[in-house]
């Protein structure tokens, strides 16, 4: 009898699966993206609903997008670079214009993002904004009597060997602001040299330049680092899971902001699936998905309002356009990219 039950059970299962099958197998999507942006929690329902199979390849930094696409091969259908790294992809023709009329909730996305230079070129739109946040700073409250509020803490000799900075050209943005140069994306040669000097002066105090989220978490976990910059919401949540308390703060000198958009790789054979993915990404499923998995703020506040609790909505600054406006949103450096990278390499070569 029990066996019979099992049999009928599996037969029923098979029947359900079989009836569900005809809707499936519409295409495959290869997504080059950040960890968490293709989390099973919202990708599996998407695959079940659309039949588009998603395979994600993860990048460690924005530097990975252009070289991977430049190497060619037609491997990827979607990429998700940050706003400062989109320009080379557009200029090189690696990504194709997006028909915003096919994106149902396009108009709900923050105007600031929709109109940003990073995804607009010669009258066409090239990206669908997805998530955003601050490059905030964080520290271990058990190691500070008075909470740090200024970037000066990162140059405090008393913290020698306890400081970490992201191994990225953004270190120059931090140093420039510490120098009082607020226009961090348009530094003159002198200001860039001053930022470089500032970082060279800081280097003996630095324990390690962190190069991945996991590494920064390890550095805090093993007690090596007490203060650093961070991707707001992400590493602090990972550390909280490990039982290590850290406090994020936006220093007096302000912080940079980042925004990631999904872009369609030129000539993809899976355009329909790509558009379905984009629609999912900025609907409740994708927006609350990334907010819950990565702790990032999202680009579509309307979808966020529908699927977030009030506390989460407020905590992610979705109700606070001023916060977003206060951040120094990353910009493409264009021809100056080489000079910035060079300056940062020179710091590490010193």
């Amino acid at each position: 009898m029990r066996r019979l039950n099992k049999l009928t059970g599996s037969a029923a299962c098979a029947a359900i699966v079989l009836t569900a099958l005809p809707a499936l197998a519409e295409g495959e999507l290869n997504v080059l993206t950040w960890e968490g942006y293709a989390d099973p929690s919202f990708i599996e329902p998407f695959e079940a609903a659309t039949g588009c199979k998603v395979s994600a390849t993860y990048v460690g930094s924005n530097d990975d997008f252009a070289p991977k696409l430049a190497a060619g091969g037609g491997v990827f259908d979607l990429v998700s670079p940050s706003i400062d790294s989109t320009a080379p992809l557009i200029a090189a023709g690696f990504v194709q214009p997006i028909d915003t009329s096919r994106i149902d909730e396009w108009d709900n996305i923050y105007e600031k993002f929709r109109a940003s230079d990073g995804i607009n070129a010669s009258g066409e739109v090239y990206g669908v904004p997805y998530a955003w946040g601050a490059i905030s700073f964080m520290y271990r409250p058990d190691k500070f009597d008075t909470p740090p509020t200024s970037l000066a803490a990162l140059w405090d000799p008393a913290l020698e060997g306890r400081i970490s900075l992201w191994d990225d050209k953004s270190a120059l943005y931090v140093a420039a602001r510490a120098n009082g140069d607020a226009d961090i994306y348009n530094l003159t040669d002198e200001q860039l040299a001053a930022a470089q000097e500032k970082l060279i002066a800081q280097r003996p105090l630095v324990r390690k330049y962190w190069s991945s989220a996991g590494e920064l978490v390890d550095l805090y976990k093993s007690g090596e680092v007490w203060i650093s910059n961070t991707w707001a919401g992400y590493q602090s949540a990972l550390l909280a899971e490990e039982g290590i308390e850290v406090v994020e703060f936006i220093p007096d000198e302000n912080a940079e902001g980042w925004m990631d958009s999904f872009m369609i790789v030129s000539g993809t054979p899976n355009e329909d699936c790509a558009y379905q993915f984009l629609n999912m990404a900025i609907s409740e499923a994708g927006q609350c998905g990334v907010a819950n998995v990565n702790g990032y703020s999202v680009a579509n506040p309307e979808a966020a309002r529908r699927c977030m609790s009030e506390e989460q909505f407020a905590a992610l600054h979705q109700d606070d356009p001023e916060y977003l406006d206060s951040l120094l949103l990353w910009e493409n450096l264009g021809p100056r990219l080489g000079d910035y990278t060079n300056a940062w390499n020179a710091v590490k070569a010193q």
Partner: protein
Amino acid sequence: MTLALSKRNRLRQFLVLSPPLLWTVLFMFAPYTILVVYSFWRAQFPLAVPDFQFGNYIEIFTDPQYARVLLRTAKIAGLVSLLALLLAFPYAYFLAFKVRKPGLRLTLYMAVVAPLWVSYLLRAYTWKTILGTEGLLNSFLMSTGILSEPSSVFLYNQTAMVVTLTYVFIPFMVMPIYAALEKIPPNLIEASGDLGEGAIATFARITVPLAMPGIVAGFTMTFCLSFGDFISPILVGGPDGLMIANVIAAQFGAALNWPLGSALALVMLVIVLGIITASDRFERLGQARLS
């Protein structure tokens, strides 16, 4: 008749040789040619434009950061090779001359070689957990009372890089030295003793010269492998750990300057080839002197 035979022979020769030849052309010469071509191009937003100019090379030789990183890389590779030699030679000597049981000898030899089967990344990562502030070394030193509080001097600096690289590449030093020592006929050493030379003189005048090809080969391999390393600076290096391979990676990635990256890669290639040629000469010189 003979013509047909030699023709067939040539065909056979060609068939036997063609896979490795094809491989070399496809995966060695073609990529290097592309690299050479790229190194004369000019970086221009978004990527690069074809050109024939020496700007990339001029930049490498005028901007002091590249010389600095190259010197640092050479220093670290040199220290790694030296440390590996100082550890590997006595070990190989002990294996070749002092261990009598073949089974034990094999076991001890494999103890050095076996780690090669474990992922390089994993082995380098292990050193992080050993050298860290809350790592094994600190726990040990504190439990034995040598330290009263954990020290952070072991990890995230050049010493940690040298230690890690030495550990990772020491098999490449042990293997050739052991092979060279093993080939030394025992009667040479006995003859030296019979002729009244002491142990030290025998070692200096017989063993070391005859082991020299192994030493040179081991030194060259360890040096070149360390010279091109870019994982240890990321894993255990500190803010002053940048090596030349990291700079090249940054040019291809962050800076999107493939021409400069190619030029740097070629400069590095020339240095490494130079070292291999020099060691080859050195070895042949030694050989000639011996015979």
